């Protein structure tokens, strides 16, 4: 009987030793990975704001209520100016940096960034647009538009030259890729809206609208209501155009320069309201497409909301 008990104890002892060795092995062999995106709230849509404010070259993430979530990229130390941002996927975005001129893929989760540079990408850089249909990025460079594949390879030399048909680029500042493969570009040099067909590898000019007045249009978007909305810096207005971009603009908001003054960027919220970055007031304002301000205070006004270069929605897809 005693022998049997001793034998059981011996086997138990050996098994316990193996067991604790396995536990130790597991504890030392647990791989590192990601955080669970659900916990980080990456399933919800977020607003990304790129700022070119000297002393705070940042990309800042806000929730849809305008609450600061995180500073996701900070270029203040390196002196690279974030000029344009565009989505990459739900958890990454592409940024165009002026300084050491390049595109950079940035993770919302703090993973290492990936740089895409090309000798052809140099000069004054501004907004960036992503054509999801053809999976191409377009970036304003001087009086050209540069094109990039999603893998960061430069397309064309450049992909859109200063003059393409009737479209002429002169100090372009704002750009938007529509969901029907058109590229909208507005500029302050000739106050035009140029509309390009980007469904092919060699974009063509669809139309050019010269009836916007000498008002320095700065940013443009295609809204889910079908219209095009743009902001100008001379009269500090928000105006709209029909979806084809042709015709005389209709004024949407020209109410109060203490609210919108020197607008620099424009974005549509999921509920259809518009966010307008107002440089003079260092704020981001929210208005309806009927021209009414949402609420009585700024949607965002903090240390990061001055000189916004571009705003986009990301995630939640």
């Amino acid at each position, binding site marked *: 009987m005693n022998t049997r008990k001793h034998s059981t104890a011996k086997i138990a002892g050996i098994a*316990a030793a193996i067991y604790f060795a396995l536990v130790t092995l597991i504890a030392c062999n647990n791989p590192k990975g990601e955080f669970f995106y659900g916990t980080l709230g990456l399933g919800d849509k977020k607003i990304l704001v790129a700022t070119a404010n000297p002393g705070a070259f940042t990309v800042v993430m806000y929730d849809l209520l305008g609450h600061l979530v995180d500073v996701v990229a900070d270029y203040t130390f390196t002196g690279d100016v974030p000029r344009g941002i565009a989505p990459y*996927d739900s958890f990454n975005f592409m940024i165009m940096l002026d300084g050491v001129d390049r595109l950079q893929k940035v993770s919302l989760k703090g993973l290492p960034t990936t740089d895409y540079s090309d000798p052809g990408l140099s000069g004054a850089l501004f907004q960036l647009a992503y054509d999801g249909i053809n999976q191409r990025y377009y970036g304003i460079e001087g009086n050209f538009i540069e094109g990039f594949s999603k893998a960061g390879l430069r397309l064309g030399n450049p992909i859109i030259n200063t003059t393409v048909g009737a479209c002429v680029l002169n100090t372009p500042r704002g750009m938007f890729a529509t969901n029907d493969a058109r590229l909208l570009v507005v500029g302050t040099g000739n106050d035009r809206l140029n509309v390009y067909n980007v469904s092919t590898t060699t974009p063509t000019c669809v139309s050019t609208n010269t009836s916007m007045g000498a008002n320095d249009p700065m940013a443009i978007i295609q809204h889910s209501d079908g219209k095009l909305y743009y902001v100008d810096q001379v009269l500090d207005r928000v105006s709209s155009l029909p979806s084809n971009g042709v015709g005389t603009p209709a004024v949407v908001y020209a109410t109060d320069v203490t609210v919108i003054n020197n607008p620099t960027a424009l974005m549509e919220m999921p509920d259809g309201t518009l966010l307008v970055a107002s440089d003079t007031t260092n704020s981001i304002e929210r208005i309806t497409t009927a021209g009414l301000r949402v609420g009585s205070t700024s949607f965002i006004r903090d240390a990061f909301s001055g000189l916004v270069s571009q705003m986009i929605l990301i995630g939640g897809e």
Partner: protein
Amino acid sequence: MKSLALILISIFCVTAFANENGGVAFSVGAGMGKAAIENPDQTKAHYKVLALQGRGHLPLFDTRNFDADFFGSVKYLDLENTSNTKFQSEVANLIGPGAGLELRAFKFVLGGEYNMMLARHYAVGNTSRDMKYEMNLVNVYGGLNFKFNQLSVSLSYSQSTGTVPKASSGLAKSSPYNDQIYWLQLTYSTGASFSRFLQFLF
């Protein structure tokens, strides 16, 4: 619901007349291991797991060398993301009741369990928020069991799978969860059948 009631009644009928070799038993266990949740882009969040469990066993069939038990359990899992830094960390706690079936033959033990876990995830750092959800876990395990009179010691390995629902995570699709845990379990057998155990209690 009716079928569940029938199963439970059947189990209680069987257990009431099971012989008294080991009888009603209670066990506590502690475990260590790892867990992972898959993100929608196929990347994974990996976790260190500390686990605790308590069980009440009702014998279905009980002989010297072969037992079959139905058991009810409460399981607690503490998860800590392996990528935690001082800037961002993530922990999670899961707790919930379960039920299962355990077979023992000689020194080998094998079982299956179903748990309904209530989970909470906490992100602390640059992003601070929490998330709650319910998750059903299917757990299978196997190991060795050593009896010392009324006390027995089990060393076992378990694997669980479940799904974090997309309605709770807000992500585009539900996220598969799995864990692997090494358990040390102590079981005390009362030696009484379920009916005698009830008589003792009431």
